[in-house]
């Protein structure tokens, strides 16, 4: 055995804040090496990737557009993960929300339906996301089926369901055979906030959601229950908190936020339903949740940072012919470092020299 872990008696807050920063620094260093390997100047590449998008107003807007769904999904997931409930099907709940809301947009397309359409779409998306997330939650509570596996499987069911709708019944007859619905009517779309940018009012909704969840988590009994069940499940059981109810609750809330993020994405920046509405937001949001240390403010920062990697990657592809795949490499490595640094908070790692021989008792 080479490594040995010892649980730390107390966890310092300073390390808690420092750890994601260290993780980001290590990732940047690793990526710089990668740039050098593929024959690009690391300094120039890092500049194009991480600095230039911040200085250009249009790119900055695009980052905010990308950060909106990431933050909204991640804040819901953080509730689950704090309570030690493993919803990894956010991508599926996102798609289902987008589909449910789009249903109304498709049905009212070209009619003189009024301004009630958009709010109704948002409500539909939220409800559908919550209901879809309740499937793995109920399977878990009622039958004991692992929510990790069921929620993951349901992602693909949702994807194929949406694929069927946009290629089949909902396809725009005037769409030149592209698998998209007709563009949504103005009453079914979220207006942009500024002229010449795609930043839309969904971003404000996301900020509101983050504040609500932060208050719920820090100032209500339910939030206390979530934190307690996650930190000390036995103690929570003795104090009469119902763990099953919590599984249902956290899944429903996070599913609702995923669904809302889905319909906002479709009604906002995209404007119609198509098969690839998400570049894996539901999975990237898991990175956001962990990088933000499951903390609302941390998630805001982490969401912005992950969105920056998407936009920086696109810019670097155009400016320096860096393959777009590097963004995924970057995100994967980042999550590795974040998780490893988190482990350093909980444990002290010791290198052990010499081999202690393990002898089976009955040998």
């Amino acid at each position: 055995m080479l490594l040995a872990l010892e649980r730390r008696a107390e966890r310092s807050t300073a390390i808690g804040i420092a750890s994601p920063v260290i993780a980001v620094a290590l990732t940047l260093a690793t990526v710089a090496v990668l740039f050098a390997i593929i024959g690009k100047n690391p300094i120039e590449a890092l500049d194009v990737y991480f600095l230039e998008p911040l200085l250009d107003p249009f790119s900055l807007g695009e980052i905010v557009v990308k950060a909106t769904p990431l933050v909204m999904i991640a804040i819901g997931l953080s509730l689950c993960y704090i309570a030690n409930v493993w919803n990894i099907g956010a991508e599926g709940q996102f798609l289902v929300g987008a589909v449910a809301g789009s249903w109304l947009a498709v049905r009212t397309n070209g009619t003189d339906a009024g301004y009630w359409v958009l709010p109704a779409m948002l409500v539909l998306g939220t409800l559908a996301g919550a209901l879809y997330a309740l499937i793995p939650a109920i399977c878990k509570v009622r039958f004991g089926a692992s929510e990790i596996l069921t929620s993951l499987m349901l992602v693909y069911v949702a994807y194929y369901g949406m694929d069927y709708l946009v290629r089949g019944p909902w396809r725009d007859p005037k769409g030149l055979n592209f698998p998209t619905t007709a563009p949504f009517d103005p009453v079914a779309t979220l207006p942009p906030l500024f002229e010449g940018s795609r930043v839309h009012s969904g971003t404000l909704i996301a900020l509101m959601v983050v504040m609500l969840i932060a208050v719920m988590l820090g100032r209500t009994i339910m939030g206390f229950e979530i934190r307690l069940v996650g930190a000390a499940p036995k103690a929570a059981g003795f104090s009469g908190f119902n763990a099953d109810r919590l599984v249902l609750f956290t899944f429903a809330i996070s599913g609702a936020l995923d669904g809302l993020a889905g319909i906002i994405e479709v009604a906002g920046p995209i404007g119609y339903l198509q098969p690839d509405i998400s570049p894996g937001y539901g999975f990237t949001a898991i990175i956001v949740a962990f990088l933000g240390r499951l903390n609302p403010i941390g998630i805001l920062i982490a969401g912005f940072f992950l969105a920056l990697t998407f936009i920086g990657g696109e810019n670097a592809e155009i400016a320096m012919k860096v393959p777009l795949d590097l963004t995924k490499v970057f995100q994967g490595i980042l999550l590795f470092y974040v998780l490893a640094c988190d482990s350093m908070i909980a444990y002290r790692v010791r290198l052990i020299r010499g081999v202690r021989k393990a002898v089976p008792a009955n040998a």
Partner: protein
Amino acid sequence: MLDALGQILGLIFSVNFILTVITASTPLLLAASGELVAERSGVLNLGVEGMMIMGAACGFAAAYVSDSTIVGALCGILAGAAMAAIFAFLTLGLAVNQVATGLALTILGTGLSGLIGAGFVGMRITPAPQLYLPVLTGLPVVGRILFGQDAFVYFSFALIIGIWLFLYRTRSGLILRAVCDNHVSAHALGYPVLKIRMLAVLFGGGCAGLAGAFLPLAYTPFFIPGMTAGRGWIALALVVFASWRPGRLVAGAYLFGAVTFLQLSVQGLGLGIPPQVMSSLPYLATVVVLVLISRTRGASGSAAPASLGVVFVPDR
């Protein structure tokens, strides 16, 4: 309707259909075999898709450079195992959450394979040779099915039989299962829980890498980024669908393989079944099976491995 049904039956019992299903099922069986061993040791590695696509990219690159299927397959195995080593270091060495690490592995693998494979897109290699036995391969119907496959197909069956023998007929297999059923007791008995799990994870990675390498080496003679196309997730579903049993895994792999193939041909028959329904069937079936086996926990003892995905830190 009857006519279409007749057409489907005719299709299912045709030699060509069986040959196609074998090629569709082999990567699923290979990848799922490895994941089965890892999960039976108590480790849930959600990075199968990432390890597979790395196996495909590195396997193809090596085969192209060396002009040898064997070198390609070996490099595929190594690439998968190397990815698994990262996973093992984090989840076993640093006690990091397995779910998140597995997802990170898939994201990383998808990206890295794109970088590695970018220089090889559009190249062609000689596909893996198929067995040819003078009289036997020429036999009607069964000849090509039994005696005309490539080495991957035969190996996939040897592998799963080997795994079955290992798990249920050897002492080491018993220890592997014990480590999963109760890692605290296994540790107390003096078994090196983390070392056993590490070997199981590396084995799983090697199998996933080989499964990925099968695609450009035998299925199509070229590499396309993202060519695993979700097969890693299906393999993951398959292990659950088979309720962690090797025998059921073979049946499941061929069932899922047949379904993925049928989705293409059902479209042509005009039965009105959307292909997306067929595509989502493996995932739906897995959810249903998982619910069923979780319900009957205890009665048949076939529920999920007891400490699957649970972090273990040995006390000293």
